[in-house]
């Protein structure tokens, strides 16, 4: 691969191709039964790894979630559990 001078990236949004979820140790699992749709997990996620679906349910994008656990910590209804990643 030829690199641009000064590491300049000329294609906007190309960072999406760089999947950064690989170093996760714990994975957030959302229990939608307990979810009160407050949006705290979506707001506090330091990446943009939580999305709100059309049906009002929240989903984790595991391609980018690094398992920091902030969503689980912030959830007021304890609807998110951090589960150890095992192969």
């Amino acid at each position, binding site marked *: 691969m030829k690199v641009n*001078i*000064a590491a*300049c990236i000329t294609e906007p949004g190309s960072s999406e191709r760089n999947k950064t979820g690989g170093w996760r140790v714990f994975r957030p699992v959302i229990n939608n039964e307990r979810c009160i749709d407050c949006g705290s997990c979506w707001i506090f996620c330091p990446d943009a790894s939580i999305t709100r679906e059309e049906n009002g349910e929240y989903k984790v994008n595991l391609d980018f979630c690094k398992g920091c656990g902030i969503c689980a910590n912030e959830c007021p209804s304890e609807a998110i559990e951090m589960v150890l990643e095992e192969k």
Partner: protein
Amino acid sequence: MPHKDVMHGSRAVAEAVKLCGVEVVAAYPITPQTHIVEDIAEMVANGELKAEYIMVESEHSAMSACIGASATGARVFTATASQGLALMHEVLWIASGMRLPIVMVNANRALSAPINIWNDQSDSIAERDSGWIQIYVETNQEALDSVIQAYRIAEDREVLLPVMVCMDGFVLTHTVEPVEVPDEEQVKRYLPELHLPHVLDPEQPVTMGSLGDPNYYMEFRKQQELAMENALRVAMQADEEFKEIFGRGYGLIEEYNLENAEIVLVTMGSLAGTIKETLDALGDDGVGLLRIRLFRPFPKEAVRRALSRAKVVNVIEKDVSIGFGEGALMTELKSVLYGSGIKVLGTVAGLGGRDITIAHIREAIERAKRALHGESVEEIAWAGLKEEAL
């Protein structure tokens, strides 16, 4: 029409900045650079120079603002000295790594402690590995001309590196000399409009200064090294074309009385003037001077060629690598001349503004003569050192 005037070195630099149509200036005042940025501020306030003048709270911010402005494709300028340059250290690497053609004048001044506002070259020598091109000038005229040349070199597509024009603080900045100020049209002819390959533009978003992980970091560094190699050729061309248009040229190195010289003094900056006076008074064609004007990239081949007839070299410089016992230029000369059989001596002189007199230069020549005649001499001497004060 070009016009001749007498002016301080600082004023000569400000005139060059105006002639180059610099668009953004971000600077913080520090002795002995202050007059440069004061004069430019006045030009901007008077409407003589249509530039954005950014007041900042430190040199770190000055260079950071220059980086941001340069990334938008503007022609930018700043100036500093000593502690100010040291405070910029971190950001100097970002400017060069991002390949931004910023031009900065450094009014060479000693570093603290002990606090000292006078001239030596330790400040810019300490930044030799920061990826900046470095030019050391001898006169106020050369300071003006080198700023114009600096933009031409920095902005060349084959180079795209920042340039530091180093001029001795007080010795040049505060000294009045006759200076020819070129005509604006001449400068326009010499210096094309700036067009960078990538600029910050909301219409065409780019990421600048992104992550370079271990897979590619080395390649970016190698690109900088290749750009430095190109800069040797580009700087030479820039100087030749400058001579065609303005009638003055300097070369990458200056050879003075070298034709038959077995003894050669080597130096950078304004000290060359004192050495030339000494050599002229001496009238000995066995002793010459080599002035290194371009220190980064180092013109190794040109230096080897210039010293091909030399037997003993004495490097007189205003810096010292504490713990290595000699100045950086001497170390580099030894490296460049490795295997040539030329004996390299060093003279540490003028630290913190100590006068370098004709007597000191004669001593340096005498020591080299003794070495030439096979006597054993001190490899390194500190000129005018007060032994009793140690």
